[in-house]
């Protein structure tokens, strides 16, 4: 381990050369920032990982069934398990996707599920990211660099190999492919995650394409080449729903593919992830995931949600208002660590204002107990300090649902902060699944 830690600087320099960066909006301006890597790995014993794996597979299976149901029969609403307004007021719900059946019924091909480990050793799900979760490329390349700097570390420690992510991604793409090549569709080189797009294309043997490389004709998606255009059977798109097709969604989008929705609806191309799947990763819907698991699978949820209250329900509303000083309040419409307020950081007056806001729009908020999650050691200026960290697990849904035996561990660099999102300026670690 010592040799590995000694290479911190070199690894970070390499990451910077590869362009491992994150884009951050702060005070209205967009900045790119390097994503600092901390070489001390998070280690998860294999027997703990097995529980996580089972729980994640269960959760993502139920989420996929939920999205299918919402865009088809809506049984879960009719059976009164999920109140309809949580679905139809969710910004991730897209009426334009009603009735569309994606290839092989898969809606969330690549899911990024965020978890934290409590001090009690229990893992809690923090949120589901189903739209275009990013981050798999970071631990993937970091592992490669670590192995290069310190091969002996990986002889001494029995770490599950994580270099199969590209192969997993390819299998997922091949499974839903409707005939044609696999494409990773990027908004372009100025996108903060461009490194990830290009690296994953290389790893999965897919073609990296931008808007001008692709077009739709006769409900079929084509990739331009110097010769004849080639049919595309699966597109792993890294452009969000609203910009994907100017003829279906935001008409001013210049980074989309006109009429791709028409081709997708006709069943001639698989879109990964499927448009409209954001209805299931809404913070309000999160509350209902354990209920979904029992509704669709007839099973108890293996992994726990953080204790969550919906002010929409009277009982929960009362609890939220009475306990606002120690709860975390989240605005369901926001993402990336924005719209998150810790009651304890507010003055009495601000707490009262927040209560009023909640009372005016109870459906807009969720309240959660603050989980006292485990600190992880990180190196800061040669010293080891403890910081809050979470884990983004990547779950791939193709012929079967598989968890990538690794993940992105993000930590807060601010000792007082619980918010670890990279868009809030944190760093990352490798995640080791360790065999005993």
């Amino acid at each position: 381990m010592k040799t590995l830690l000694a290479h911190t600087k070199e690894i970070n320099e390499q990451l910077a050369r590869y362009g491992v960066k994150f884009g951050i909006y702060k005070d209205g301006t967009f900045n790119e920032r390097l994503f600092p890597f901390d070489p001390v790995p998070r280690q998860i014993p294999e027997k703990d990982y097995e529980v996580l794996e089972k729980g994640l597979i269960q959760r993502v299976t139920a989420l996929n069934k939920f999205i299918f149901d919402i865009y088809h029969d809506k049984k879960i609403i009719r059976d009164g398990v999920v109140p309809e307004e949580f679905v139809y007021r969710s910004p991730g719900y897209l009426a334009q996707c009603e009735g569309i059946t994606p290839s092989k019924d898969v809606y969330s091909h690549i899911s990024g599920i965020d978890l934290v480990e409590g001090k009690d050793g229990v893992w809690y799900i923090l949120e589901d990211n189903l739209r275009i979760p990013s981050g798999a490329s970071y631990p993937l390349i970091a592992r490669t660099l670590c192995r290069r700097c310190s091969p002996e570390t990986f002889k001494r420690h029995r770490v599950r190999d994580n270099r199969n992510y590209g192969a997993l991604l390819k299998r997922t793409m091949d499974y839903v492919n409707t005939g044609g090549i696999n494409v990773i569709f990027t908004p372009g080189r100025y996108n903060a995650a461009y490194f990830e797009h290009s690296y994953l294309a290389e790893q999965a043997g897919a073609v990296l394409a931008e808007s001008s490389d692709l077009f739709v004709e006769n409900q079929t998606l084509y990739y331009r080449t110097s010769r004849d255009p080639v049919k595309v059977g699966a597109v792993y798109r890294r452009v969000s729903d609203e910009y994907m097709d100017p003829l279906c969604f935001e008409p001013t989008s210049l980074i989309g593919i006109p009429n791709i929705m028409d081709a997708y609806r006709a069943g001639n191309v698989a879109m990964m992830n499927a448009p409209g799947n954001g209805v299931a990763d809404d913070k309000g819907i999160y509350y209902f995931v354990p209920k979904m698991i029992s509704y669709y699978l007839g099973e108890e949820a293996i992994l726990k949600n953080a204790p969550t209250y919906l002010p929409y329900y009277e009982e929960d509303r009362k609890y939220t208002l009475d306990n606002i000083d120690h709860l975390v309040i989240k605005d369901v419409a926001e993402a990336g660590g924005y719209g998150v307020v810790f009651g304890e950081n507010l003055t009495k007056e601000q707490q009262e204002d927040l209560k009023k806001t909640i009372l005016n729009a109870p459906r807009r908020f969720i309240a959660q107990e603050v989980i006292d999650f485990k600190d992880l050691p990180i190196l800061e200026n040669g010293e080891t300090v403890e910081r809050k960290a979470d884990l983004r697990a990547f779950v791939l849904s193709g012929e079967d649902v598989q968890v990538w035996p690794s993940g992105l561990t993000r930590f807060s660099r601010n000792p007082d902060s619980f918010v670890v999102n990279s868009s809030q300026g944190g760093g990352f670690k490798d995640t080791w699944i360790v065999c005993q």
Partner: protein
Amino acid sequence: MRRELSFYFDTVLNFSGSVTEHNFLLRCIPADSPEQKILSYTLTVYPDGAASLGRDSFGNVVRAGRVVEAHDSFRYTLQGMAYRDDSQRLPEEAAPFYRYASPLTQVTPDLEAFYASAEKDMDGCNGAAIQMQSQNGVQVQSVPGGCSTLNALEKAKILCARVHDYFTYTPGETNVMTTAGEAFAAGKGVCQDYAHVLIVLCRMAGMPARYVSGLFVGEGASHAWAEVWMDGLWYGIDPTHNRLTDETYLKLCIGRDYSDCPLERGVFSGWAEQIQKVFTKVSD
């Protein structure tokens, strides 16, 4: 009353320069339904390429196309015959999304206040009699004053009359991106804005409501109105003219608001201003 309508709908887009790589999606082909049988139609698109037909999530017929070569105008012309008979409507469920706000039909405080002021007319006791006009000016549709329990359609009629009275019909003040809230704040607009505001108000009253693009008997431009759902049936209601629709109306496409169902939408390469000319003619 049953009618046979002949319809003609012609749109020309003139570009100030050449455009290439023009992808478009038309929603001008009317869907067939028990109350609106399309007996025949011809769609001419020029220039045209890679034509394909499909359906969108709202049930509209979508006609896609792609023209790669340079062109400086684009024209599509639809003509045909339709048989209209509203007594043939069949009961159907209203998709739940028609009860919720959509991009152009968000509730604003102004609209909330306006709805609140209309609410007293709808409680069935304080309301004055509301008169709606039929096409030839004879008052045939009315909502009685005095105490009664109003059904959804009667409430919609009250809201329709309110919207009609509130707005000053003014072309050129709004555009296709204008939201209900913006149009309401201006107090001016065209049929699209009237329809959007009425849709917001009807949804606030708890009824499913949707947007219709279409044509009606006469000559001029295309038209837009709203539909509200009650007891399994959709009822057309036209706030621009303050009346319920009848067999003189021909539906081309529907959505939660205009943005779901523009008759034509296209993107192309090239810097060009575009001027659109529309001519429609419907006769029976």
